[in-house]
């Protein structure tokens, strides 16, 4: 009688969660490429749609918030302020909603072949990031025309902002993506969260307008919300340098940046990581039932 050494064996269908990305990086790359290649196939404008939607959004917000509600009086270069916030919020909204739908959209595969299912939400977030790049490029061109020069702290702010948004979107996307398999109307929560994400961050108004109205504890909570932290970082990196320049030449007054920018960013990032860990945990729990619920 010999017994078998079980150390060589593995249980099929168990991955290492999001860490599997490293082993499956080639597939991830192909999935992302598939997403970007087929995104606007058979549509008249093609990738032009990537510009039309944010442009329309920008136009509406600019007219309503800037001209009708006269925000451009208090905020120098309101257009740049607005647009840099919008691209960030769009990046979040798109990666979050794509990640949520990623499992049900790939049901043919999830039902039939085992592969680490975390790849789908991750590919969705990367796809949204690629989609964010042309918008960010427009913003950068505008800022460069206005005399934007890179600084170490500004670039760091931009990178950290993008990381916070991506991690938050992935965590929430995995959570609701897993839920969405069992309960198809989980997508409705996503739309609600998207409304919140647009209006609960200082994009269409400024942080000190919130500080004026809200009690201090509430304001502090507001500012460490990962998205608000990310938007303020992005403002710091893109808009503030050109706004300072504009003030220096044209005169006027520039309101101060939020007091605890980097502390808020740190807390925001920590919250984002908590979202990610919670999302991964829920995802793993629901994953066992994906194939039968789809």
């Amino acid at each position: 009688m010999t017994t078998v050494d079980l150390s060589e064996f593995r249980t099929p269908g168990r991955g290492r969660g999001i860490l599997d990305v490293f082993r499956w990086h080639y597939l991830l790359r192909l999935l992302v490429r598939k997403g970007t290649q087929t995104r606007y196939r058979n549509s008249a404008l093609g990738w032009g749609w990537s510009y039309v939607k944010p442009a329309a959004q920008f136009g509406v917000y600019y007219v309503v918030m800037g001209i009708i509600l006269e925000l451009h009086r208090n905020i120098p270069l309101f257009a740049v302020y607005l647009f840099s916030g919008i691209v960030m919020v769009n990046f979040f909204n798109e990666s979050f909603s794509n990640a949520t739908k990623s499992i049900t959209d790939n049901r043919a595969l999830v039902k039939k072949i085992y592969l680490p299912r975390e790849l789908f939400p991750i590919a969705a977030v990367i796809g949204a990031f690629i989609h964010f790049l042309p918008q960010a490029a427009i913003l950068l061109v505008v800022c460069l025309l206005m005399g934007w020069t890179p600084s170490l702290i500004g670039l760091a702010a931009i990178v950290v902002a993008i990381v916070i948004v991506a991690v938050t979107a992935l965590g929430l996307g995995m959570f609701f993506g897993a839920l969405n398999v069992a309960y198809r109307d989980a997508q409705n929560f996503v739309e609600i969260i998207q409304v919140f994400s647009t209006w609960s961050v200082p994009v269409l108004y400024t942080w000190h307008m919130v500080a004026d109205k809200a009690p201090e504890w509430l304001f502090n909570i507001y500012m460490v919300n990962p998205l608000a932290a990310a938007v303020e970082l992005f403002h710091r990196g893109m808009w503030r340098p050109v706004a300072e320049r504009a003030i220096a030449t044209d005169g006027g007054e520039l309101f101060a940046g939020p007091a605890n920018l980097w502390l808020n960013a740190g807390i925001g990032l920590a919250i984002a990581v908590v979202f990610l860990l919670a999302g991964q945990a829920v995802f793993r729990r629901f994953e066992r039932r994906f194939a039968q619920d789809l």
Partner: protein
Amino acid sequence: MTNVSETTESTPAVAENKPSIIVDHVRKDFLLRKSHSFKEAFIGWIRGKEVKAKKFQALDDVSFIINEGESVAIMGYNGSGKSTMLKLISGVLEPDAGKILIRGRLAGLIEVGAGFHPELSGRENVYLNAAILGMQKEEIDKRFDDIVAFSEIEAFIDQEVKHYSSGMFMRLAFSVAIHTELDILLVDEILSVGDAPFKEKCRAKIRELAGQGKTMVIVSHDQRMMKELCDRGIVIKKGKQVYDGPVADAIEVMQQK
């Protein structure tokens, strides 16, 4: 109900071969769910209807060990649970009780073509699907010509797959799946693909893999093929394993009803 064995640490003795697949007291239930949304679940709860899903036992206390290099047929009528067994081995489903362990790289000829995207070209689909089956870029590069040659659609490889005939599509999909690097091959009713010459070619390829000492698990209704390819048969009836032994006897057990 099954009792999960506590003795998985010391699996039964194997004389000469090492096991590739261990299936140990596996049970699989399916929940026939009545609600697929929060709304339905909530309304059901308000009306006092039974929201709890009905349970359906697809597999009940199935145990077997498949050794390296063995070719095993899993037989049973429709709904007997044999395809569920294959999905459990592939990892798509997880057992509700019991354990499944596998050793080596596993590839499934299960619903080939699941990962194909109609808007991409044949070439892009080959890379995408081979990657889905776990291959890396270098491996695919090396095998790409073989895959295309086997599928016999060289002339159309750079066309979008949506322009393919269903036969061409299946041939390419099968060809990708069969060329993956593998130690264990799962085959599910796949050989209904294509015309007679292509079917014969597929059989020959599977025989070749068996000859190379790959472990094989085949689910099929085709008795001739099972006799030809397998030496052992496991019969599953209504989720219960009723026979495990030489393939000819297994076919007889099947026919007795």
